[in-house]
């Protein structure tokens, strides 16, 4: 697997092709914004009926990352479910699948804005989690230091030899790291958007996901 290594808060970290974050020293895999049950929620709200296979798709991706890294800890950075009802309405097969992935490892659910409060699946539920020099939470806060968050579904676009390449991307500066969304069928916010441009400092970098994750200065 092609991993883009970088250092953040004094730690060596790796950006995986799928958009997961790998922390080798702690054998920790961090993923954000899975939005499991999205299709179910949209159908419930009278939107277009999408088949419920997005959940399976996202879990397949997670299973293969876990197989490759054999992570001891999995950290889900919030918005793991599209809402609490979606978490409850998850089909039994998918719940069993999650349980199987959880077996033998530590699992932490961080609360997101879509899924505040605990869900009935196993694992620890936290608002935020501190570990060594780093803090993991769903939405980036002002005055953050060593903060890893999600929420914005960032993506970055560059132009190479007349071609636009746009990918979900990690955004990174001295103080914070924002992860791309891990779920299938999730949209994205360009790094050039004002919200993200304001959040990240002048020397921010972006890591484009894909078969070979690549680091570039964050496009503004």
């Amino acid at each position: 697997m092609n991993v883009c290594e970088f250092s953040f808060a004094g730690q060596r970290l790796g950006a995986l092709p799928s958009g997961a974050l790998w922390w080798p020293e702690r054998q920790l895999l961090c993923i954000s914004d899975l939005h499991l049950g999205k299709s179910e929620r949209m159908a419930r709200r009278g939107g277009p009926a999408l088949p419920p296979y997005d959940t399976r798709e996202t879990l397949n991706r997670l299973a293969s990352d876990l197989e490759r890294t054999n992570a001891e800890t999995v950290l889900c950075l919030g918005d793991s479910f599209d809402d609490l009802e979606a978490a409850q309405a998850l089909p039994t097969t998918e719940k069993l699948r999650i349980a199987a992935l959880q077996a033998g490892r530590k699992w932490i659910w961080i609360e997101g804005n879509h899924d505040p409060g605990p869900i009935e699946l196993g694992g620890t539920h936290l608002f935020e989690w501190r570990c060594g020099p780093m803090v993991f939470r769903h939405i980036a806060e002002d005055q953050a230091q060593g903060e890893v968050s999600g929420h914005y579904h960032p993506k970055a676009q560059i132009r190479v030899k007349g071609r636009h390449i746009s990918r979900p991307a990690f955004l990174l500066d001295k103080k914070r790291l924002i992860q791309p969304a891990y779920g299938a069928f999730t949209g994205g916010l360009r790094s050039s958007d004002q919200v993200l441009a304001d959040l990240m400092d002048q020397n921010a970098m972006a890591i484009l996901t894909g078969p070979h994750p690549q680091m570039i200065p964050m496009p503004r």
Partner: protein
Amino acid sequence: MTQIPASIGAWFSSKGWSFHPHQQEMFDRAHDQATLLIAPTGGGKTMAGFLPSLVQLADGAHSGLHTIYVSPLKALAADIKRNLRSPVDEIGLPIRIEDRTGDTSATQKKRQRVDPPHILLTTPESLALLTSYEDASRMFDGVQRIIVDEIHALAESKRGDQLMLALARLQHLNPDLRRVGLSATVEDPDAIARFLARHPDPCQIVQADPGPDPDIRMLETVEMPPWSGGGAAYAIPAVLEQIRQHKTTLIFHNTRAQAEIFFHNLWLANEDGLPIGIHHGSLDRQQRERVEAAMVRGDLRAIVCTGSLDLGIDWGDVDLVIQIGAPKNVKRLVQRIGRANHRYNAPSKALLVPANRFEVVECVAALEAAKAHDLDGEPRGPGPRDVLCQHILIATCAGPFDADDLYVEMTAAGPYAHLTRPEFDACVDFCATGGYALRIYDRWQRLQRRADGKWQLRDPRAASRIRMNLGTIQDTDALKVRLKRSRGGKPLGEVEEAFAASLTPGDTFLIGGQIVRYEGLREMVVEVSRRADRKPKIATFSGTKFATSTQLSDRILRMFAQKDWPQLPPHTAEWLALQRQISRLPQRDRLLIESFQSDGREHLCVYGFAGRNAQQTLGLLLTKRMEDTGLAPMGFVATDYATLIWGLDAVTDPTPLFQRDALRDGLDTWLAGNAVMKRTFRASATIAGLIERNTAGQRKSGRQATFSSDILYDTLLKHDPDHLLMQITREEAMRGLVDFGRIETMLDRIGDRIDLLRLDRISPLSAPLFLEVGKVPVKGAAEERLLAEESARLLQTAGLDQL
């Protein structure tokens, strides 16, 4: 056999007319089960079709519906009503004639169902809708005759398949129904006869005298045609001169966008202020009607138009047809030329204007084919099953059905004569459950089986939704364009949704020959203001891009084999000679591939001559094969005759790229994820009722529909690849946008005779491809390589490469 009543004969004589032999023959055959008349434009086709109806209705004894006339165009139905009215009124026949199309008012429609006219003029969609009502059997009781006009056009599309299923329904209600088809000149009349008749009834073909050969030539201009493009702006002065010399000229274009641009340029050069109008399918109905009326009055000297004027509306005194751009298809050219001199037995006059250098060759080939009466056409396969699914839903709206009976009824329709029972059952199952992968969703479970074994709607309210989504016309997702006013301004026409999405306020574009400024989008309406002072951004109505027919492509290849080209203008002949000197000319039974470097990239030009759509598909499949073998392709562009691919590495051995199994495999696996396949799926899924475009109160925008249909497609591909709609999508992929069938034909033709030529420069024949629009980027290893290089460069520039 009855005689033509004296009153009708007298009316004919009073006009100084006599019956044509084919009109007499059609009258004599009035009691045949099915008859197909093939006659050129202006041959009194419509009268031949209606004469028996007028005679049978002359005594006033028949009550209720007697004859249904179906045409592919609403305008044609209205036109026929006018033309039929005059003899009926002047002779004083007790016949009520009404039309019923999408434009008919709701009150009128309601009344027609209770008290139908003697002669009803309608379209395939309106007729299908009528058969969906519970009281259909009452309304259609006693119908004697059905006349299908322009059947050659309907037989080429799903609209025709739908119509034949509706006819099967009518025939079931009235076993004695007689069918009459009216057609322009076609290459295979027997196929249309089989399409029209109830299977396995015979169908007599009546051929009218085709009239004298047309006078067709290529327009001679002082300026040389450009190397690429479709605008033909160079020919404007010559075209204006022709308009001046003739009474009324029709100027045909292959696409709406080209028609708009040409019209704009024509007016800029129109110093004499000749009255010239524009007519195409994206214009607002009122605008079109105004042009049509002006034309009938003889107020216009020329009309710039597209296929919307292809069909047989009587436009009066057209004495010249100009075709801008290569006709792509000889049959259509001949039919278009028939629009000039709408009088029987006078030769039509037409001029071809090639839009670029390659089209010079194509136009000359088309001229030769037209002179040799060598018409082209692809045989159509069996009736598609998406239309069948829609028809099953329509049938259920009219009342519960018995599967055995419905199967017998549908296989009596020509296009479905060979439908097997399992195929039919799969369609019923799809309508009932949505198919295996979708069975958990309520919304697709539309039918249920009653205790007596008949199928009925699970929810009777679904009938109105099914009716709302009826029809098989799919081409574009258009948004209405209006002038911005406080309370809704004048409607101007339509643009494609994708085009509208690309506009930002302040952008200008052409519509109906005017430059307008985009102001904003309100409730699915594009609001614009008038603006005459800026150069327009061009409206990209895609219209339909036709691929050059197989027969015409063959003719071009045969022409290439000539020693020299006396029939071509010198500039084009010299171009071909230069190609022969530097490289080679493509041959019919070999595949020529050129490889060369340009602008720091490797290029590969494949001369498959398989038509635009197939060359496009070939580009997708070849770049995928190149990607797999590490040749890092970056993109390609396709025309009717070649595909040009560029990338980071040169191809030295093309043979593995063209293995049939590998290409076939690419179609089944990799191409399955492509947007073209998704578009193909979307069209079928909409027809079959899986996707509803219209729901009560609102119309789903194209993009919304694309979103859910793309996801549906991906899901079915992954979890239920044998779903009925996936099978239909694969069948559709052999023709139309994907056109894999023509790639297979090409592979059969060339066998293993592939010639790869390494050149030290761009070849003359490939040069125009560099100017072609519609380049398709390939995202893969080349992109990863570029990204890695760019990342390294950016990091180094920022001094971060040691990070």
